């Protein structure tokens, strides 16, 4: 269609959530004039949400970082600097610290909002230019348990199918996710499938919108997902809903699970999780009796002390029924950020190179040493929480953080700030000043997703092209350019002129990405693994699993109590999450007209609890946990179960994460954001102050 309202239109991939909507970005006068959905986007099929479509004004806000900044003294006001001076300062400080304390005194964070090529460049910088495996990304605090569990149970760290499987499934279990808010386009897709007759079972402490479209809603107490999945497995085994043939020919370890299951009859699950026994039975039958069925989950499963074990139990349920590896039967984790799948795929993790190959694997490490021409460490690096602990302990001296506002989004804010203040040197690469840049010695101005080229990998393992629609403002540069300049200043050349050339190196060094190239990705992308001839993999495990012997592994894991619990002093359980109108730390969405729709975080509380505590809708309340205290306005709603409260972390003045303690997933140290015992009481006045930090 001809449209003279716009000077240019490029097709790109949305930079908000992990759905991976393909967008047409229309520009005029070097501004985004409008964004519309690409009709041929595989994940969005001509649809978007209000973030992807409308929340683009942040790109030209006046407070964008447009020049490097240097802060000469802690707490001082940073001054503008030239790129030459800023890069010189970064290189001098990092090289000084490395000389004095060794390479492992430096750590880097790649960004799950950045491209695959940015993340690959960042991990190469940390490994080759600095010489440490201290590199991580924010999947640590969201879906690292999913990655761990899928690798343990099935072999590969990714969804086994595609969103299109929802369209073909007869039933779906959705657990610990609220996709109509967090992943709106997939939420709409699940809703449409339900309206067409897919039998949807929702499992969440909140009565999420999709519960109204399902056949059954289970509201377990936070932290008891394991008991619910074990109860479902119990009923599947008891009532003859096991696919014996599949279990026998394609899996191992089922007997150990069978031995465990007698401990979890529906009545026992009702006792632990507060879910009626009959509902557990019905959920099992809806899933087990369907010809094809999916299980989908989000951070309500992973952000727990035993989150990774629950994902393994989800895999158990699917394997018992043989519902994996064919159209309409898939395991579909709803990955959080636009490139949280890709940043981990790219090896921006302290223990793996690309495609989750161990840094201790001699052959793999040698292949990277040969390509990069430097010796590489075989020792695992620190995870994000370990980095903060190490900083406080004085073992970590410098950090280079790309695009992550750890001071707002990571748990235990006071500890994070203490860690940042303990560093000798902090470089932050960002598009806006934020809570974390307050502690930075050097701030490097980066480009947003609308201003750069590369690829994002969505929650379907689909690698899709990102194309610049407008120029970065002022002197801001793309993350790819900046990481290359920093690496050059540190004495290690990153030899690629363009992100496409970086992708060629990734493909050459990563068998599962062998056939990926920018030219091949085209308009609809490719789902890894991609064979050298370009054949991709919409469905994994059609014939065998990616584990030794080709067999999937059952995990026999008992229910264990969460890391926090309600008691006399802290009688309610706080769950934190997101809202439709804002995205995580809100760095982008708070700078758009989305704030006209939602302008603050509120605390959802059940009418019964509110009445008992003398709290009226709109009252400011004190919210106190074992770790911290904040003040926030209450919103009385029966979307939340009695005994629980819910809030978001979109607005920095709320400081929600002051409340979240150090408890984390036993296997991956993903924080337990979803179970925080709190005390709520009215304070009868407006919030008096933003809480001071350590």
């Amino acid at each position: 269609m001809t449209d003279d309202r716009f000077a240019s239109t490029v097709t790109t991939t949305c930079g908000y959530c992990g759905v991976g909507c393909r967008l047409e970005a229309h520009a005029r006068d070097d501004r985004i004039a409008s964004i519309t959905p690409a009709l041929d986007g595989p994940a969005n099929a001509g649809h978007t949400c209000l973030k992807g479509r409308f929340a683009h004004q942040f790109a030209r806000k006046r407070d964008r970082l447009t020049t490097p900044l240097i802060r000469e003294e802690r707490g001082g006001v940073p001054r503008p600097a030239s790129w030459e001076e800023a890069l010189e300062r970064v290189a001098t400080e990092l090289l000084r610290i490395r000389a004095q304390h060794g390479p492992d005194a430096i750590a880097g964070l790649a960004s799950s909002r950045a491209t695959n090529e940015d993340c690959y460049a960042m991990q190469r910088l940390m490994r080759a230019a600095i010489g440490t495996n201290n590199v991580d990304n924010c999947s640590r605090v969201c879906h690292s348990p999913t990655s761990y569990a899928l690798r343990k149970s099935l072999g590969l760290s990714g969804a086994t199918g595609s969103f299109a499987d929802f369209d073909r499934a007869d039933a779906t279990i959705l657990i610990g996710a609220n996709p109509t808010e967090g992943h709106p386009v997939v939420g709409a897709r699940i809703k449409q499938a339900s309206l067409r007759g897919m039998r949807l079972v929702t499992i969440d402490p909140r009565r999420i919108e999709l519960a109204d479209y399902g056949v059954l809603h289970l509201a377990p107490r936070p932290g008891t997902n394991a008991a619910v999945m074990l109860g479902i497995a119990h009923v599947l085994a008891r009532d003859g809903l096991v696919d014996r043939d599949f279990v026998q020919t394609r899996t191992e370890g089922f007997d150990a699970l069978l031995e465990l299951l007698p401990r979890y009859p529906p009545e026992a699950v009702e006792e632990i999780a507060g879910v009626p026994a009959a509902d557990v039975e019905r959920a099992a039958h809806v899933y087990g009796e369907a010809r094809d069925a999916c299980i989908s989950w989000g951070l309500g499963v992973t952000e727990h002390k035993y989150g990774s074990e629950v994902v393994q139990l989800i895999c158990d349920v699917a394997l018992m029924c043989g519902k994996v590896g064919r159209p309409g039967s898939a395991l579909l984790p709803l990955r959080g950020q636009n490139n949280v799948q890709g940043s981990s795929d790219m090896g921006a993790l302290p223990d793996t190179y690309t495609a989750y190959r161990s840094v201790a694997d001699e052959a793999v490490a040698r292949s990277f040493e040969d390509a990069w021409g430097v010796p590489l460490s075989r020792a695992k690096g620190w995870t994000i929480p370990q980095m903060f602990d190490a900083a406080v302990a004085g073992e970590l001296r410098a950090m280079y953080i790309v695009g992550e506002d750890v001071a707002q989004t990571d748990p235990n804010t006071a500890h994070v700030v203490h860690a940042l203040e303990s560093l000798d040197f902090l470089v932050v690469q960002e598009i806006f000043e934020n809570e974390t840049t307050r502690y930075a010695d050097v701030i490097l101005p980066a480009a947003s997703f609308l201003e750069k080229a590369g690829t994002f990998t969505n929650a379907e393992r689909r690698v899709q092209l990102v194309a610049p629609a407008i120029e970065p403002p002022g002197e801001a540069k793309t993350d790819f350019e900046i990481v290359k300049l920093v690496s050059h200043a540190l004495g290690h050349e990153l030899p690629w002129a363009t992100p496409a050339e970086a992708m060629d190196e990734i493909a050459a060094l990563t068998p599962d990405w062998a056939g990926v190239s920018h030219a091949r990705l085209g308009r609809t992308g490719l789902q890894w693994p991609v064979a050298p001839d370009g054949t991709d993999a919409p469905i994994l495990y059609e014939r065998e699993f990616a584990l030794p012997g080709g067999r999937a592994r059952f995990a026999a894991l008992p229910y264990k109590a969460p890391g926090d619990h309600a008691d006399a002093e802290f009688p309610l359980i706080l769950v934190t999450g997101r809202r439709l109108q804002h995205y995580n730390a809100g760095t982008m969405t708070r700078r758009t007209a989305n704030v006209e729709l939602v302008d603050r975080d509120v605390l959802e509380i059940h009418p019964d609890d509110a009445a008992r505590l003398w709290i009226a809708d709109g009252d400011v309340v004190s919210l106190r946990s074992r770790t911290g205290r904040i003040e926030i306005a209450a919103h009385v709603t029966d979307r939340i179960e009695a005994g629980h409260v819910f809030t978001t972390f979109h607005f920095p003045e709320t400081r929600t994460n002051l409340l979240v303690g150090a408890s984390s997933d036993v296997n991956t140290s993903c924080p337990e954001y979803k179970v925080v015992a709190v005390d709520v009481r009215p304070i009868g006045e407006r919030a008096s102050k933003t809480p001071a930090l350590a």
Partner: protein
Amino acid sequence: MTRVAVDGVEVEVAPGATVLDAARAAGRWVPTLCFDARQDPFGACRVCLVGAAGADRPIPACTTPARDGLAVDTTDATARRVARAVVELVLSELPQAPAPHTELAQVAERLGVGEPRWPGETHAPRPADTPHPYLAFRHELCISCGRCVRACDELQGTFALTATGRGFHANVAAGLDQGFRESACVACGACADTCPTGAIDEVSLLSPPPAALERPAEVSSSDTRAGRSPAIDGGSG
């Protein structure tokens, strides 16, 4: 597979495909107005009529299943005459010509429909709803094609839009006609994306108003909250 001849060109389409699918597969243009490939066929506007061998009158391409051996003529004189008449009648109800980028304007141009010959009553502009930061409603441009209602139902699943009124007064309402802001609308924009006339449009694209609008002042000043340009930096928050 089903074999269909479109203007003499043989094409194969999958079972369940429509005559419109076949015409598009053959690379032939069929005008449409109430059709959006993202939605189930609706068949309300009759702009997509084509001639069919053996049929005594034109058939709607978007709702007619393609059957084996069918021969259709996309340039059938009767079909085209009806399509032009429909588009001209639709245009005659609007207080101003639709902007050139809109689907209605483009279909009219390609069909050779110019200034409507019927100068009767046109839709009167309505007072604006409570302003929404992104979505603007200009009810007087609504042609009741139902695409926005179906986008909200079939693509998004929010059911915030409803068809209202009858005949000349047929229109669309958000919620109980209190506007987007007070309705269940989640601002996904699917309605604006499918609207063929700009009756539902992005606020930022109205300001400054497109030059093609003849009477922009009274419409856009209320809908976009005069003096403010929401999509431009510093405009809000």
